[in-house]
């Protein structure tokens, strides 16, 4: 059995983009600040649409922002 964990580089990307706050990013991608926090902590796997919006907000591709770790259990 294997589980998939999504690692994101949202936090570092926010700081690279003029130290953008979680709220500013949330407003840009139309979600709540709490969801951005959960994503950064790896507690939530976003929908494809949200992942695409976040990547677009940073001018990156989805693969550059989200990395899937396949952990065999």
């Amino acid at each position, binding site marked *: 059995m294997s589980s998939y964990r999504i690692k994101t580089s949202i936090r570092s990307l926010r700081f690279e983009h003029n130290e953008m706050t979680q709220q500013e990013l949330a407003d840009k991608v*139309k*979600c709540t600040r709490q*969801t951005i926090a959960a994503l950064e902590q790896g*507690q939530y*796997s976003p929908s494809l649409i949200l992942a695409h919006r976040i990547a677009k907000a940073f001018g990156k591709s989805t693969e550059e922002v989200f990395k899937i770790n396949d952990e065999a259990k």
Partner: protein
Amino acid sequence: MNKNQKRSLGSLLIWGTVTIIFIPLFFIGGGPRAWVLDNTRFIISASIFAAGYISFFTMLGLTRKKNTDNIERDERDILIGRKASEITLAIVQGYIFFACIILYTLYDKTNSVPAGWMWFLGYTCIFTGYISNSAISLILYKSKADIL
């Protein structure tokens, strides 16, 4: 704490309080048989129940979206809401099933279940639903594990 968390906490406090008041009121002075015959306790219970609903809807009104551009409910909130509802359904089903089995076992020999127990089941079924739904939502919001 976002709007959904505030609502869950409010709901938990309101229905928790209503339950804490209702249960002793039901069992004091003779339990289900006496409760049905005692008009005062019958009316007090109904009033507490009504007060619970009034407080609940007031709380929903007070936490309604005001003029703000911030998103107050997104896909994660919807997912948490769905998951909490699924678990709540299982809890309420289990509660009713086991409560009915216990009543059957208790009153199998007498062939008559006091009507007060039906009222108790009715009231507590609603309390169980609201309390478990709000508690599970809060747990899911606070959960550190990647469960969603």
